[in-house]
């Protein structure tokens, strides 16, 4: 998962990666030849920091979309491994199948019993195929509903890690009622009497994302995106062209900063310089801390009150927008 030689280089990261490679090369040389190059390394590291700051200070929405989809970006299972103790993965919708995409289970988060949900996309081709590229099927959303019922029954807060390009658009998914599965999953999110916190850790892809994100608190990593449609699909539908992705990403206002502005999300979680994929461990810890802060605020709230204010939050959403 660390940035290795095979990892994807984003367009705007090319010079950064060149400097990173130089530093690596020098370090290797120093080990082999036993020479002191610390001066050169620190000079390069300074240069690297400067370039990272430069590149990441003004990422365009399209560049953020690329960072959000970076294969080395920490994913749902990485968060679970690092943040959830005694995790028990739970499978199946008790009706048709288990959807491997929708990760579900119970465990302890900083000592508190919780239910965990999220989509896993996979880091390489093999795992991507296993997880169907992060696109859940109806059985995945029904598994999510089952988990939320469990949470409701045993008074377990629900933590969702949202990372999907969208729900799976296939014949089998339609046959088993993808629309109903998503609708009912949203309904379930709104119905439960236990805190639910959803964090958009990468891609918040439309209906497939909101199905597990109609939450008390919606958090978003700084370079994540959350949108009704992908920039690619939007470009091809509205511009009738595949090369207007930058314009589409711009127009859709899909960045964490935009969503905070519209009052759709509650907090932006800052990423390490150079994006989450440069420091997965640091990112995961920070996300854990912010989730814990919100969980501590929600835990004392009366369960009926919690549900009522969640309903009110969504009914009010967008009714009083700020002036641009």
């Amino acid at each position, binding site marked *: 998962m660390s940035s290795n030689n095979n990892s994807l280089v984003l367009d705007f990261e090319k010079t950064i990666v060149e400097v990173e490679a130089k530093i690596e090369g020098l370090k290797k040389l120093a080990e082999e030849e036993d020479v002191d190059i610390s001066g050169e390394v620190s000079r390069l590291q300074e240069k690297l920091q400067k370039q990272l700051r430069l590149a990441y200070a003004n990422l365009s929405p399209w560049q953020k979309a690329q960072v959000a989809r970076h294969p080395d970006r920490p994913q749902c299972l990485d968060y679970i491994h690092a943040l959830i103790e005694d995790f028990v993965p739970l499978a199946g919708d008790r009706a048709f199948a288990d959807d491997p995409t929708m990760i579900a289970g119970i465990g302890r988060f900083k000592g508190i019993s919780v239910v965990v949900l999220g989509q896993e996309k996979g880091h390489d081709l093999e795992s991507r195929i296993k997880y169907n590229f992060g696109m859940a099927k109806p059985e995945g959303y029904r598994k999510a509903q089952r988990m939320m019922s469990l949470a409701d029954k045993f008074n377990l807060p629900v933590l969702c890690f949202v990372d999907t390009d969208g729900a799976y658009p*296939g014949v089998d998914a339609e046959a088993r009622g993808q*629309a109903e599965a998503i609708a009912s999953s*949203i309904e379930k999110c709104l119905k439960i009497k236990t805190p639910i916190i959803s964090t958009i850790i990468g891609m918040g892809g439309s*209906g497939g994302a*909101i199905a597990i994100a109609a939450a008390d608190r919606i958090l978003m990593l700084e370079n994540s995106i959350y949108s*009704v449609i992908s920039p690619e699909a939007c470009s091809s539908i509205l511009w009738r062209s595949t090369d207007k992705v930058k314009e589409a990403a711009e127009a*859709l*206002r899909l960045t964490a900063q935009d969503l905070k502005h519209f009052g759709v999300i509650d907090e932006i979680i800052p990423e390490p310089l150079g994006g989450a994929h440069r420091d997965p461990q640091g990112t995961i810890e920070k996300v854990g801390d912010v989730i814990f802060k919100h969980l501590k605020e929600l835990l004392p709230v009366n369960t009926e009150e919690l549900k009522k204010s969640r309903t009110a939050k*969504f009914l009010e959403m967008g009714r009083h927008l700020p002036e641009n």
Partner: protein
Amino acid sequence: MNWLTDFVRPKIKKTAPIEIADNLWLKCPDCGQMLFSKELKKSMYVCTRCGHHLRLFIDKRLKMLFDNGEYSEIALPHLKEDPLKFKDSKKYTDRLKSYRKSTGSEDAVRVAKGEIGGITTIVAAIDFAFMGGSMGMAVGEGIVKAAEICLKGNYPLVTVAASGGARMQEGILSLMQMARTTAAINQLKEKGIPFVSVLTDPTTGGVSASFAMLGDVNIAEKGCLIGFAGPRVIEQTIREKLPEGFQRAEYLREHGMVDIVVTRQEMKDALVRVLSILTHVKPRINTLALENK
């Protein structure tokens, strides 16, 4: 900030229905038969040759559902327009203007109050003619307001869906309508107020994946397209061959997603029966026998 405390009594207004002229020829999109508009009006826009249900004008739809075609329309609150300042090849505000002109509606939803089989009912109908019935803030607000009135007056709610999905031009705010409308419907369900979802051609995307699939009873109009992803998206992205009758109302019923499929002629009767039984009220009109074909 509670949405119930700032309840404003809705203004009632009447609008002049927009309809096509009597002397036009229309081609059946299914069998290709040329149909005379005067005849089509009599057949409720059902092809006299093959039985294909053509898309219905929103005013016709509302008239068809209410007793004697009588209803009063409920004015919806105005929300901030074009929150994203969205522009593709055309400005979103310009698109809105031209659709308002061509449909006579403010946006793609109409909320009406009237009697169905003598039962006072609120109907929120989506107008496909207005930007493909896409759901943005205004449509969401229509559903929320309709549910609010039902909650206050203890009226059953009927939604009529005809939508391609979310309104892209409103970005994330259009996506949030899935949660907004679901939250509104949830409140009715908790109070035991009936919610009947009528699905017509087409019901896809964000509308099918939210309130339209959550009816206590889901009634679909014969042959209509219902799905999450549109058939073209599935064909293009997955490269799968679509089975015969895929995503049609009958297919959805077979797969357990809708309760009953009815012809346009049967729709009103089906609604009267369902509403009267769920509300324990004897209907004021007789209904025809229904069978699930």
